């Protein structure tokens, strides 16, 4: 694996989620991704795969198509419908043009057929992760009030000084800040930030907003930016 760029926040290895029902293949893929310097997670069936795809916040999903439970294509469709933009590489025994086109049309980033060449698979996953990193670095900074969000480094600063946010706090802030003025319901925030199958309630969102206000607002009791929209949800005003 290429060394992560110096700008990358913390030297967190990329997380790869392998959704594959064949045990030998799944374990072999996990082994090879770990040896390659990724952090690798595995799921053996469609339901588990879908849950992890939403929860694990993977940087890349390697997806089999013929799975017990949900098929790989159903998982992919569900992810894209919920606007989860994690890159997906389909690894399937179905090698016809029709299957490849269907997978890519549904939103896969790449398609490899079984049996595959291991060096090619690793080169392709590297390429996908590299593109994702570059796209992140090219993302412009978002600013409101005295707060600046730098998506390239996943960093937030207030009046030029770094603010420590947890992963979920950061994702929640980014969600609101990328669409300033738009109202998000608590349900939508739960779906987009915490993911499918999360057992939380609307209170979870309220608590995270409270923390964000304490960290970012000049006066947390009368927020200027992180506004509550009564009976609906939250909105970020620039």
């Amino acid at each position, binding site marked *: 694996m290429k060394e992560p760029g110096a700008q990358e926040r913390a030297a967190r290895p990329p997380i790869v989620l392998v959704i594959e*029902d064949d045990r030998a*293949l799944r374990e072999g*893929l996990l*082994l*090879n991704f770990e040896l390659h310097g990724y952090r690798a997670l595995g799921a053996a069936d469609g339901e588990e795969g879908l849950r992890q795809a939403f929860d694990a916040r993977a940087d890349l999903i390697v997806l089999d198509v013929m799975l017990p439970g949900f098929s790989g294509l159903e998982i992919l469709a569900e992810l894209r419908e919920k606007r989860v933009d994690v890159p997906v590489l389909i690894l399937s025994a179905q090698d016809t043009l029709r299957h490849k086109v269907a997978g890519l049309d549904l939103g896969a980033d790449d398609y490899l057929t*079984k*049996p595959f060449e291991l060096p090619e698979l690793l080169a392709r996953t590297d390429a996908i992760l590299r593109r994702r990193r570059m796209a992140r670095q090219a993302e412009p900074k978002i600013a409101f009030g005295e707060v600046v969000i730098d998506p390239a480094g996943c960093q937030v600063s207030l009046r030029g000084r770094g603010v420590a946010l947890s992963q979920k706090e950061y994702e929640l802030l980014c969600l609101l800040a990328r669409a300033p003025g738009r109202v998000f319901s608590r349900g939508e925030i739960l779906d987009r930030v915490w993911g499918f199958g999360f057992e939380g309630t609307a209170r979870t969102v309220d608590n995270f907003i409270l923390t964000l206000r304490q960290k970012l607002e000049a006066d947390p009791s009368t927020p200027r930016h992180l506004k509550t929209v009564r009976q609906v949800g939250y909105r970020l005003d620039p």
Partner: protein
Amino acid sequence: MARFRNRTRSLSFTRLIVFLAVGVLLPVLLSSVVGIVSLARGESSDPIVTGVLVLSFAAAAIGGALTVSVLLGRRARLARLQADLLANVSHDLRTPLAAIRMYAQTLRMGRLREDPQRAEDSLEVIIRETEWLETMLERVLTWRSAARDRGLLERRAEPVGPAVEEAARRFERLLAPGEVELTVAIHGQAPVLHDRQAIGSVVLNLLINAYKYSLHEKRISVSVQELDGRIEIAVADNGVGIARHELGRIFEPFYRVDSSLRGRASGAGLGLAIVRHLVEAQGGEVRVESTPGRGSRFAVWLPRAAAGTSP
């Protein structure tokens, strides 16, 4: 011999359609048209007789056309099944092949040079996966020969225990250590008229089926017992089970249960079709009981051989 017979059968099938179309449909249609024209022009000496003839010819034409379309539809269905079989079989073969290639490349790239234990494990996986490949190939070949001929069984009157134990041993060679909790219980040494290889194939297919449709902490048991003068070979699992409305269809070739029970394992859909075929060819029957979410139990019943029976 079998191959030759098969070719003549498919040839005559095509010929039949052509013969029906050219030899029957065409003259009948022509006769009907001639009759209608002569009726319309008032040239017929006996319009009633001509009318009856025209109606009969028209009915024959419709019947012929229906027969041809049914035959053509059957041909198309057979072709589609053949294509499905190829696609599914290739999936069954590609998955172990992919694993073998990946582990071999892992070793060749020297990625496990520092880790002899994992290198050893990888070799074990490669060997296990070749067993899967062999089993899947055998399954296709069994299906091909089963679909052509029934009379190839070598039946002997002896206990089925050894055949069942051999199948269980082969099944274990397909598994990683500790992957399945398998129990084998053989009671009843009564002789049964059976082909040892065929019964082995039946049990192995049932075991693989149980394995495929079980998710976590797989527990599979295989047992032999004597009940009411018959021998029962049963394979039970704690898998996803089968919905009631699907119980009648699972033995059809190429049929695979749908995903509603999170059990849509991949595969050619041949295993249970082979089981039923081989069991029925030996005068037995297969039954299945299943509770969705709890597991299934497949039971093969074979008649006990009378003393001194020979095939």
